[in-house]
């Protein structure tokens, strides 16, 4: 059974929180040490690199805002995995749903560019979500009918989606200058930004959606029924819960959120559609969601950590002449350490365990 006491009143839960924070901190330190070793081997100074990373990401207001910008798509894609995961659906297809969402939103941005922002932006978001949901509908349906496992179908569709995006860009939408991207969107198709930084509206929407997700799972009938299906699908079915409909719906809502993430990428971050723009954001969302067990607060923390690493990596590209992709290694090491649940000696874990 779930603990129902509010956590601020429960000392034991606090203890558990402190304990797990300490564990995760140690894990991240271990990953940093491993990556530092690799930096050292490639002839770079790890301590200097980490100091630069920290100073840039957490030491300045601008750097911190960039962390929040990098965090936005991760929050959304992780949520797109977390919601179906409550029904034990493994949505590896966020990458593809993201591309299709971005593609549909771009179509709206290019076709209705004369509309004012208050009409165009909702339209783009709606189409993006619709595209993502449609892309998830097929795997959801096949799973609900017991025909094909959703892991396989979503993976296959992931490979298809970027090609469809490329088809539209190279065939129809490319700008006069570049063949692999569209022209810049009109200002009305751009999400508004805040505080003179690149933080755009989608960040606040992502935060709000996380809150809605938490409330939905905890306080609504649908949330209760979803938890029942996640606990025991057979029992849920015998109790008259329409399990199949829930499976399809959860996949589609997950797809819609992923599509929204795609819309936010083109409308907010890039301001245009670029071939192969994602490079794994969807897979990152899967990892974040998996590591935080689909828990909203966990998603928030994990996304923040990953975003700090990514943003810091951006800087290392400049100061240490590291290829940008190299930061993926630090990220992967962090994930490995967490996935392998490295056990630390008792003194490091504290008394609680």
């Amino acid at each position, binding site marked *: 059974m779930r603990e129902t006491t509010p956590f601020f009143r429960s000392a034991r839960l606090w203890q558990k929180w402190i304990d797990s924070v300490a564990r995760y901190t140690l894990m991240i330190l271990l990953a940093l040490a491993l990556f530092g070793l690799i930096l050292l081997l490639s002839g770079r100074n790890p301590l200097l690199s980490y100091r630069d990373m920290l100073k840039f990401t957490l030491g300045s207001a601008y750097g911190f805002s960039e962390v929040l910008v990098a965090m936005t798509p991760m929050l959304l894609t992780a949520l797109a995995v977390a919601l179906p995961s409550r029904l034990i659906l493994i949505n590896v297809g966020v990458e593809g749903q993201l591309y299709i969402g971005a593609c549909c939103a771009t179509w709206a941005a290019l076709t209705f560019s004369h509309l004012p922002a208050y009409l165009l932006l909702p339209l783009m978001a709606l189409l993006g979500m619709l595209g993502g949901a449609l892309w998830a509908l097929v795997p959801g349906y096949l799973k609900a009918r017991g025909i094909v496992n959703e892991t396989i179908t979503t993976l296959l569709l992931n490979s298809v989606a970027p090609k469809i995006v490329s088809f539209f860009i190279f065939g129809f939408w490319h700008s006069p200058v570049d063949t692999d991207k569209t022209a810049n969107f009109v200002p009305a198709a751009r999400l508004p930004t805040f505080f003179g930084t690149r933080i755009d509206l989608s960040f606040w929407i992502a935060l709000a959606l996380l809150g809605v997700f938490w409330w939905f799972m905890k306080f609504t009938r649908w949330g209760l029924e979803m938890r029942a299906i996640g606990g025991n699908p057979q029992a849920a079915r015998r109790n008259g819960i329409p399990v199949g409909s829930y499976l399809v719906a959860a996949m589609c809502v997950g797809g819609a959120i992923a599509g929204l993430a795609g819309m936010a990428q083109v409308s907010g971050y890039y301001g245009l559609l670029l071939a192969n723009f994602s490079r794994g954001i969807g897979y990152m969302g*899967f990892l974040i969601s998996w590591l935080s067990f689909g828990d909203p607060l966990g998603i928030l923390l994990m996304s923040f950590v990953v975003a700090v690493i990514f943003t810091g990596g951006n800087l290392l590209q400049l100061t240490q002449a590291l290829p*940008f992709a190299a930061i993926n290694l630090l990220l*992967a090491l962090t994930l490995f350490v967490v996935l392998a649940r490295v056990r630390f000696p008792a003194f490091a874990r504290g008394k609680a365990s």
Partner: protein
Amino acid sequence: MTLLSVLGVISSAIFSGTSLLYTTLGEVITERSGIVNLGLEGVLLVSASSGFAVTCRTGNPYLGVLTAALVGGLMNLVLGYVVVTRGGNQLASGLALMFAGFGLSALIGKPYVGAKIHGLPRILLPGLAKLPRLYTSLFQFDMLIYLAIPTAFLVWWLLYRTRWGLGLRAVGESADTAFASGRNPWRIRYQALFVGGLLAGLGAAHLSIAYAMNWTEYMTGGRGFIAVALVIFSKWHPLRAIVGALLFSGAVAFQLLLQASGVKVSPFLLDTIPYFLTLLVLMVWGGTRRYAAPASLGRVYHGTES
């Protein structure tokens, strides 16, 4: 359309399909032992970059191929530690391996971007020496191409005609039962991962050392995921993997043929055909319940006490 252009298309399809066949065979072995490796993309990238780097440094492509294969095996062993020994989730750990591959290959390959190498020597298909020069140039393949289909038979023999293969398949179906009959599921899974990694490394070596003969970031372009799909398409059987690889090469060939004959079809749309075909095949099989995945695919083996 001339005979020459048709032959040219077939030749380039063979070149692009070879790396896929090796990778798929490797993944057949690992999945038969019960482990899904979604990180193949990363394994391929690291193997391709390190093989290329060694070839560049030593000037010897064979050393490069050897390095690529070994690096592939080692990458898979890293996954093995996380998923076999520590019991991490296979899908998530595989994706983490993919990101590790993105990063590591970028680090390894950076000094060699734009470098030139002498790739694997190409040997004319025997018996064709009398053809005109224009034609013979299309039938000069490297060693890895000639060995690809024999390798598929070798993998089939290993899996179906040796004790080792029997044990491996047993672990993939039911680790508990295999353990009860005296096999060591952990060791067998490590072995399967290593051999699978070697084969993936060979595929990657063909890509960077024999086919493209250069290194660029993300050069594998999703081949790792294609291989995972092809394993399903070939129903976890090494000989059907040949058919799967042919399907993808065929799609490449078809696309080139259409371009050569002046038909305007987007190459991107043609690229999607094999995926839809695989999906279709899966749907048909799923309906008839002849779905042949190893029964304990993706499960952690904890031992008998838990």
